[in-house]
């Protein structure tokens, strides 16, 4: 069990950033808050720099796509306080036509590849990123394959065609 409870953690963030985030819940004890792209850099910096909290470890940056939702594309940050043995999750949702968010490479160097991956798969553009290129997929790919409208299966596949199965 961590040295800081989620209530204390929430209070510290709430004192610093009143009304600038909403609490989504605590699934499996993992405090999850949602904020906006205007506040995300300030909140991340605070969590890292605060003398008590010390969320110095950026576990992951990833994305999510909810087609049909008002704000379709989500960017999710997982932070870990190694000193306090506490984790936190932050979510930012963006409109599909305007998927810009400030980079976290100014806070953690390790965010570089995580943001490249999120750009590669979800098309999230991290403003201020030093080298925002594709990292996993081929360079000449034009789509963002983890978005739901992208077909998972490869169109060149022939051995699953219906006529092989008498259909």
């Amino acid at each position, binding site marked *: 069990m961590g040295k800081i409870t989620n209530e204390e953690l929430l209070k510290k963030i709430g004192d610093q950033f009143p009304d600038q985030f909403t609490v989504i819940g605590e699934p499996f004890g993992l405090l999850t808050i949602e904020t906006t792209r205007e506040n995300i850099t300030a909140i991340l910096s605070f969590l890292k720099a605060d003398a008590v909290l010390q969320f110095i470890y950026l576990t992951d940056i990833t994305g999510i796509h909810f087609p049909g939702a008002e704000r379709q594309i989500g960017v999710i940050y997982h932070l870990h306080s190694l000193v306090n043995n506490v984790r936190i999750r932050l979510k930012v949702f963006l409109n599909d036509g305007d998927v810009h968010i400030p980079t976290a490479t100014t806070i953690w160097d390790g965010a570089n590849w995580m943001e490249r991956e999120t750009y590669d798969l979800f098309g999230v553009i991290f403003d201020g990123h030093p080298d925002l290129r594709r990292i996993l997929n*081929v360079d000449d790919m034009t789509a963002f394959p983890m978005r739901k409208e992208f077909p998972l*299966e490869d169109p060149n596949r*022939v051995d699953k065609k219906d006529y092989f199965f008498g259909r």
Partner: protein
Amino acid sequence: MSDIKLVDAPAGVEGAGFFATSIDKAVGMARANSLWPLPFATSCCGIEFMATMSPHYDLARFGAERLSFSPRQADLLMVMGTISKKMGPVLRQVYLQMAEPRWVMAVGACASSGGIFDTYSVLQGIDEVIPVDVYVPGCPPRPEAIIDGFMDIQKLVRSETGRRRNEPKYQELLASYGIQ
């Protein structure tokens, strides 16, 4: 008493003190029994290949003792494992660097057809980027299957003309892959 088996001589005319055959057959026999494979192993089929090379199955029996990790010296490209689309140009480059005569063997479901990975990031069979001579089915194939495929390659090598590279059919095949 040694029981080393020697390869049978190719068909030819034999008489007292001489033996005559065509140069293609003699060269084919020599090539077939001294293939240098280049293992392009990316996943589990590569593990099966390691077993194939080990003394229990002993691919060296077929003259393939010497693995070549340089494409310049290799005769046979053995592609074993899933080839992602990002790996495709690398595989093609390796093939282009091989000198003629060269043969390609696709080992396992992934290299042959993409296997279980029917997805946007995986090449659906290496024959999308390079011509393939022999496909070995299996997921992964057992060493016996890999050896069977290797012996099929040997059959091809034995029966091919020495100037396969100059045949119009072969050049047409290479041209369809945009090579030369």
